């Protein structure tokens, strides 16, 4: 590396980091990200600081990003004063902080009941190595290498651990060479498209109009996807550096990071990261004396799902209504402010520093699949572990489910999963042997999206599921295309009617009609809004017939097809069930309690509190003749 200014920055950061690591204090780094905050992380942090102060302990309490154990936040690491041993703890609630401080920080012992594993140092029988934790085993943490380790609000931490080395290398290369390196690595778009990122940057570079813009799409709106959030909240500088490298490759002068409204913490951390990069001279004019100018703006969206579509996002930054544009022209010709623009996902940019720092070969050879590099996934739904992982492309969904999601909750069968957001479709649980790569889904008319995979078990009804996702598409339609805003409304109406027991055989035809018609929509949102129904009709054909013809909901969800009944008059929990009913649907007749069907709203609260006293039964279905059942 020859840029002396950058070298000086790196040297200084490394010196500071070394001094910090060997300051003779215990270092506590607690995860403060959105998942952690939702699970009381702030209270834990406050209690921790108060307890440390009250005891006069010389302990450094810092904050960090998420290790990926989102279902067990707040997590925190404790690094011994000597720096020889680091242990990761989970589920530290504010109530247990005092005990934790006494046992772990003051006494220097372990707290095995909360410990996840030893990050660094020696394991004990009670606290094994973290790398042996089933959730961590097999993960290849490259993007997530720093997350949880560093303070995301301190650029020096990032630099000390190898940050901006990739940018330093890129500074010495010409644009073609950077593009070649990234193309060679095989980095494909991480939002599900898989289009080679290097080629996109090359398109932008060859655009004739000036100025050119880079946009980072952080409008991660798919329910059940939070990989971009983990990155932005855990290691925001990675994205800044990635965009700087892309700016060199594409000769762009200005960049925007578009963060969804619902990610206030990611926005704040990203803004801090950008401010710090400016302060270090890594952004702005004549960066590090190299002659490169690059300005980066962190932009907060206004809360619209379709702004995740690149032209909708561009419209939003431009100050217009967040509506996807008519293409052509494509953003590479006329995007932001009608100038050539390249839009990439957060994760796509974040990989660039790794490629430049370690070389394309190191980066790509980790994967033997067609898709190179590592990919972050989040698993959620009816699984035991709702967490975020970084793995190499290639394992089957079953492996991922068992290993990284801890299997289905309560050992239930996986009925199916959604591979990437409400537009991606649903897959039957019979097909868990599909690999986590792009092609198998494409072949089936689905797609693997940005990494948010949602599993559902037999308690989910496919009609209910479709209603939820079509309702989502309906509510998030921008309102341009008749086909989209009108079509999703029609679909939701039919679905609601089916769930109320009014299914008709013509509905299946009408669904097909909608599937055919919605493809005439302008953007992906409308074009793929019907994918959930289209794939569900195939993958769960029997269940549709049950709903429409037999008027039966096997999952016991569809309100018009089921009724709640009192099974046991003597169950002790019945009183609680009666008390919790929001509509007072329990009526007494001759000393016997029953549920008045007209009053019952099927909220299911009674069954939750009194599973033995309350049962769900078919309401409309004619009892299937024994012979017919046997014949089937």
């Amino acid at each position, binding site marked *: 590396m020859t840029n002396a200014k950058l070298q000086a920055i790196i040297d200084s950061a490394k010196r500071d980091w070394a001094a910090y690591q060997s300051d003779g204090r215990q270092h506590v780094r607690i995860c403060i990200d959105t998942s952690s905050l939702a699970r009381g992380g702030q209270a834990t942090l406050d209690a921790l600081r108060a307890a440390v102060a009250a005891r006069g302990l010389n302990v450094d309490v810092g904050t960090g990003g998420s290790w990926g154990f989102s279902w067990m936040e707040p997590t925190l690491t404790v690094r011994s004063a000597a720096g020889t041993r680091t242990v990761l703890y989970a589920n530290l609630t504010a109530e247990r902080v005092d005990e934790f401080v006494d046992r772990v920080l003051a006494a220097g012992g372990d707290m095995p009941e909360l410990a996840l594993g030893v990050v660094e140092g020696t394991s004990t029988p009670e606290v094994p190595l973290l790398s042996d934790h089933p959730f961590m085993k097999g993960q290849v943490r490259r993007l997530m290498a720093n997350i949880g380790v560093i303070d995301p609000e301190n650029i020096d931490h990032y630099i000390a651990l190898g940050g901006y080395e990739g940018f330093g290398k890129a500074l010495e290369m010409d644009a073609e060479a950077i593009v070649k390196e990234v193309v060679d690595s095989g980095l494909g778009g991480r939002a599900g498209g898989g289009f080679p990122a290097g080629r996109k940057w090359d398109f932008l570079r060859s655009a004739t109009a000036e100025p050119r813009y880079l946009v980072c799409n952080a409008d991660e709106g798919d329910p059940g996807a939070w990989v971009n959030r983990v990155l932005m909240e855990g290691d925001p500088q990675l994205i800044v550096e990635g965009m700087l490298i892309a700016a060199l490759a594409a000769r762009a002068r200005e960049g925007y990071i578009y963060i969804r409204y619902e990610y206030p913490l990611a926005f704040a951390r990203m803004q801090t990261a950008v401010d710090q990069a400016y302060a270090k001279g890594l952004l702005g004019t004549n960066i590090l004396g190299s002659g490169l100018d690059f300005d980066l703006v962190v932009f907060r969206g206004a809360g*619209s799902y*379709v702004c995740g579509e690149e032209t909708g996002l561009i419209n939003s930054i431009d100050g217009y*209504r*967040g509506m996807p544009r*008519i293409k052509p022209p494509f953003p590479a010709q006329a995007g932001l402010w009608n100038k050539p623009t390249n839009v990439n996902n957060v994760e796509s940019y974040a990989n660039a520093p790794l490629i430049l720092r370690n070389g394309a070969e190191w980066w790509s050879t980790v994967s033997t699949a067609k898709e190179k590099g590592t990919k972050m996934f989040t698993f959620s739904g009816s699984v035991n572990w709702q967490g975020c992982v970084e793995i190499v492309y290639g394992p089957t969904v079953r492996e991922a489910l068992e290993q990284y999601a801890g299997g289905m909750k309560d050992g239930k069968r996986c009925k199916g999963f959604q591979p990437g957001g409400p537009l991606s479709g649903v897959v039957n649980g019979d097909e868990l042997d599909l690999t986590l790569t792009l092609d198998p889904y494409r072949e089936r008319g689905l797609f693997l999206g940005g990494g948010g995979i949602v599993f559902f078990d037999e308690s989910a009804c496919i009609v209910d599921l479709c209603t939820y996702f079509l309702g989502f598409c*309906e*509510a*998030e*339609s*921008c*309102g*341009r*295309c*008749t*086909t989209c*805003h*009108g*079509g999703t*409304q*029609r679909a*939701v*109406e*039919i679905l*609601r*009617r089916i769930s109320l027991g009014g299914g008709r055989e*013509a509905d299946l035809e*009408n669904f097909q*009609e909608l599937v*055919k*018609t919605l*493809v*005439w*929509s*302008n953007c992906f949102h409308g074009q793929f809004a019907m994918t959930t129904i289209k794939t569900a009709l195939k993958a769960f054909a029997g269940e549709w017939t049950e709903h429409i013809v037999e008027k039966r909901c096997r999952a016991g969800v569809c309100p018009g097809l089921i009724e709640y009944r009192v099974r046991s008059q003597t169950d002790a929990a019945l009183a609680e069930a009666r008390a919790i009913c929001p509509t007072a649907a329990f009526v007494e007749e001759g000393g016997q309690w029953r549920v008045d069907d007209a009053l019952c709203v099927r909220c299911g609260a009674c069954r939750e509190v009194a599973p033995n006293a309350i049962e769900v039964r078919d309401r409309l279905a004619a009892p299937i003749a024994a012979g017919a059942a046997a014949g089937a």
Partner: protein
Amino acid sequence: MASITVDGQVIEAPAGAPLVEVLKNNGFYVSSLCYIDGLKPYAGCRSCLVDIEGPPGLQLSCTSVVQDGMKVTTSSDEVKDARKAVVSLILANHSDRCLTCHRREHCHPGDICLRDDVVTHRCLTCSKNYRCELQATCEMVGMSGYEPWVGEERSWYQHPQPPADRANPYMEFDPQMCIICTRCQRACEDKRHTGAITLSGKGWDTRIAFGAGGAIHESNCDFSGACIDVCPTAALMEHPNKWVAKPDTWTMTTCDSCAVGCSLKLGSKEGRGVIVRPGNANPFSGDQICVRGRYHYDSLKPRERLSRHFVRRGAIHAPASLADALAEAAQALKDAKSKGRVGVLVGGNLTNEEGWAAAKIAAALGGNADLSSGPVVRAVKGALEARLGTWRTAADMTRIPAAKALVVIADDLEESHNVASVRVKDAAVHQKAKVIVIGAVRSELVDFAACWLRSEPGEEGLTAARLADAVAGGQPHDHATAEAAGILRDAPRDGTLVVCAPNPVSAAIAGSMAGGAANLAVALFGNAASENLVVLPTEANVNGLLDVGVAASGGDDPLAGLAGLLVVRDDPTMRLPGAAEALAKIGTIVVIDNVLHETAKRAAVVIAEGRAYASRGTYTTGGFRIQKLSPAVAPEGDAIDCYRALHGLGAALGVDLPANADAALGEIAKANPAYQPAHDLILGEGVAMAVAASGKGTIVPVAALTVSGRGLRLATGRDLYTAADAAALRHPEAEKLHRYDRIQVSEADAARLGIHSGDEVEIAAGGAAIRAKADVNERVATGTVFVSSLLQGGAVAQFFTGDALPTVTLTAAAVPGRRATQLA
């Protein structure tokens, strides 16, 4: 040109043209419910699907462009089915059952629906029935019987749409009928540059909203109705005559409201106007008109216009036959002539032919025909002639929207000549033209201006003259003038135009404005000044009337020393200070008009005529374009059209006038060859007049007008909304929105005086006073009040008696419990 094949037929079309327009213009049917010709495609309705050979699937014809060799199919089964499927999704959110009913042609209003459908779901109860684009589309696409969504619980109806907005006098908006094609939003934004309409919400909650989502009249809507023209359903409709606006006749004519001369199509039913659409015959106005053009056909109810002729019998007006009235009028005028001078005053919106006839009659009576705005007109004419050698400016107005730099010198062009203002905005938006606005009040045009030289009221001309000096190299008067001069120096000369709309009330101010504008044109263009200056009189046909000899000469007071007076569609009490006293001294007054205004009330004979929309003839617009008027409405009752009235009076006076207006135009053309093309093209809609360049340009200093008194400065001008004929009646609804029947006061002055909008206030100076409600706004500057030139029948004229700029005291009317306060 490219060659494409459509359904096997070869068509020539310009490469790159939007396919949907090419298909429509060549007679192929394509449903397109959101496209607006000439604007960028919105591609929202998705129904203009066609099959283009090559790419997979169907394509939208609005986003496709013509390419040589393209093969297009518009009528395959695949295309038809797809279109039906798309339209069915639109119908599902529209009150629709009639649109797909097989019995729709047999049903009549009041019939019991055989499908037991509710009344509100039926086209038969819709005011747009049989003139609805969605309805026509359903017929063409073949929606009959295609109802996949019938019987659904339509969730769209479960989220009640906002109630229809019927709170203003001009326009109704019923969101129930809306199919969110956003044509209105784009017409408002891209054609009008107003931006009063927006698309709000998302998903099923997406809907059209005005302003911030409130009532139309609370937004910045200026009621041009451009949105109504493009609305494919009954969502946006004219408020007046909404239910009867299915005309039996459409007549192409010309708006009589200002000198822009927009062409319009007036739809009439049994002789009465019921609807107006833009006419497209004037290339300057194109498809735009303003609120006056669209609604002032309806400014008065038919019974408020004159439907009988009257002769005075003592203290009362007695109805009379036309023959009696004409005979009596002629006799009265002859008698008056024998006693002294007889004057003739005509209105500024008379046609050339009517003006010519009036001038002939005036000559026979031994005088000249004049306008009651004659002093103003002559001041402008004189100012132009002194500098350019001619008053006929030769600039082609259609250069305005293509200009790169524009100077606008006006009281408020947006208000006085709205469509001209739209074209200035066109230039600002599409050509990135630098617009310099010189004016005292904050015009909407200021939002589009690169530079606003805010003058004191009445000093617009002086400000323009100072700018001219700076352009010519003199020391700039102030920083803003220097900036504006810099803009003009940098702008391409052949893309620069000066536009001036002189004040309608004060001759001194109007002359000064025209002089300042002419100076600026001379400073910029030298001897070519007249070719680059547009002067827009306030009234519609001032230029034409000057051409036929009206107002050519006359004094400062057209009513001075008269023994008799003939007034044709004019009311001198609206313009001439002291007119009431002067009229009282005139022995004989004969009025030809369609309303019984103050002058008519004093007349010995009143002959009822139809208004300009009943006339056949021509106007010469501000841009010297001869625009045709055709009788679009019938005169009320016994009334006759104005030319016929003049012809009859002429006959009774022994003046031999041509039998009809066309023949009169022939006579005009004989006297003035510039009118020959108009006469030759009498069947056409309009023709540009050849105006010779003067080849002369001299700067004549513009004198600063003295300011009388030390009160608040008084600004006035033509406002956008007041109807002139209703104002002549002092009609309380002359300004139906009630924005300009008020005295406009700045926020700072209002605060000092402790008044609020709606409070009663009075302005007064030298014995003259106007009392009205206050409108506190940001339009006027501190220390200034604004009063519309038509408020209370032109009451503001009484303040502009001499050459001095008036000032007034502003008094909050005494309210019980509050002391009156006064600002001076």
